[in-house]
């Protein structure tokens, strides 16, 4: 954290500040506050959810890092931890909860199943939530040890401190998302029952209504 802490002897041309005054950039101050008070929203679906609970329990206490409050309401959280496999029946729910969270928000994809589909390369499991949700941090493991999750939160805190801005300019990553999506579609052409997916139907209807 780069705070301009004045030395004991004030330098020429600078204000002499008393000890209880700190001068910093607004962005850094905001980042410091945000990173040390991340309120996780546990989107716990499967086994990683148990390791998430163990991380919050007394032995590997997550509260030490400011993440004491595991609020389950998306309106009150800023960090969504997707712990466990996400199946296609659950994905619209995941997307809706992500949209209900307020900015600034971050997402940790915990475990192999949330990051890439894990052991389950089957008809029902989404092969990586980052295909459909913007993800900031991936935690490998099946399930990751609590220490790994804590490391992920520490790394996310570093990321927030490094890249954060008070206005949220760093969230403009749509270009990166489009490249990733193009890669996905090159491998797996989407030949699907779009006619039967209500989420897609709603989007199409909204687009038709707009045009």
């Amino acid at each position, binding site marked *: 954290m780069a705070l301009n802490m004045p030395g004991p002897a004030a330098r020429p041309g600078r204000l002499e500040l008393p000890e209880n005054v700190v001068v910093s950039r607004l962005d850094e101050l905001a980042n410091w506050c945000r990173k040390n008070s991340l309120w996780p929203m546990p989107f716990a679906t499967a*086994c990683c*959810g148990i*390791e998430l609970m163990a991380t919050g329990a007394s032995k590997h206490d997550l509260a030490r890092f400011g993440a004491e409050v595991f609020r389950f309401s998306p309106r009150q959280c800023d960090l969504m931890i997707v712990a466990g496999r996400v199946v296609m029946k659950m994905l619209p729910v995941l997307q809706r909860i992500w949209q209900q969270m307020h900015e600034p928000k971050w997402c940790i994809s915990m475990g192999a199943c949330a990051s890439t589909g894990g052991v*389950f390369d089957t008809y029902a499991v989404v092969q990586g939530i980052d295909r459909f949700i913007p993800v900031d941090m991936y935690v490998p493991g099946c399930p990751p*040890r609590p220490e790994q999750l804590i490391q992920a939160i520490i790394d996310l805190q570093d990321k927030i401190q490094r890249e954060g801005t008070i206005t949220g300019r760093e969230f403009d990553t749509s270009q990166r998302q489009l490249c990733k999506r193009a890669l996905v579609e090159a491998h797996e052409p989407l030949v699907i029952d779009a006619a039967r997916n209500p989420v897609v139907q709603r989007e199409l209807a909204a687009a038709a209504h707009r045009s």
Partner: protein
Amino acid sequence: MSIAPAPRTLRDAAADTAARSEDYLWTLNFGPQHPATHTTLRLVLKLDGERVVDAMPEMGYLHSGFEKIGEHLTYNQYVTVTDRMNYISPMANNVAWHHAVETLLGIELTPRCRTLRTIIAELARINDHLLSNGAVGLDTGAFTFFLYAFYQREVIYDIFETLCGARFTNSWTRVGGVSQDFTPLVVEKIRQFVKTFPKTLDDMERLLTRNRIFVDRTKGVGVLSKEEAINAGATGPVARASGVTRDLRKDEPYLAYEQFDFQVCCASAGDCYARYLVRMAEMRESLRIVAQAIENIPAGPVNVGIDQRTALPSKQQVYSTIEGTISHFELSMSNRGFEVPCGESYAATEAPNGELGFYLVGDGSDCAYRARCRPPSVLHFALFPQLIRGHTLSDVVAVLGSLNIIAAELDR
């Protein structure tokens, strides 16, 4: 003293709706993302103020195609997937899966292996009940109880980690034996656990068992009668709390359970409080089994012999005997493996949640043709509407917790 009026039956609700319009009933969507739905279940509740008139459960939010994967993985590979079914006691699923496979193949285990698997299955049962009761405590507001339970689970995780390297999702069993034998350190840790666990269990009971608030919230809530339990296929603590005295460890003994002295815990009330008490009592009985077993582990090999051609031989045998070498290669090469009959069988164990069985269809190859898992949670979740009718919204959480529905086992 509860000041709430007696629960209205559905007949009262129906009579009311016949007389007036149903405008006053409102629908509440509970889940699939909700702290008290232990991971992903969904309940659509029809409420009259605070009273639940009807509940429509929906599942499938974690369906990952386990049974289809079972048709593509070998019997020793699939054990890794069974870990991820009832993920609060993965060892119990491993033991159940390999019990089913060994029944299909007609393999008889060594005495040492049976005792080791019994010890680990009972530790897994303690693990499961700790989390299940811990979650009931957490959902009804008793956070300290939950933390005590989780601390003991960490002790058991430490034992499992010393045994096979993974805290959880262990995949410890193999066809014909286990992957790692007990070392003296593991035995010492289990002895330590047996010495220290009863005190924590006493502390936990002191917190909740006679706690006025907890008793009021769970007594008389979610009552399941014995006939309904049998008709709905309930097994395990849910059925035993309603008076069904069925426990596969005594009725169809498997592994080494016949050698140990323990009791089957039952209750007759069938409400949430009875289910909580049955689980607490079962933890004590499991500890008794572990205490007896850990002092009486038979010596000898833990895996079946080389002549059976199922378990991998030890490295000493592989490097010093010709049979060991041949056996090692035959089992490891992908087009050899071990012989599986073309037949179908079902074998069940008493998992912490109930009767966990696998119906296996073998077709001669090293992958199962069909690996059906009979999940206790599905039948318990189907019971939910009849248990909750007439109770209030806050009772939904207590009943759901007491049924111990694990979404991964529910949906597979």
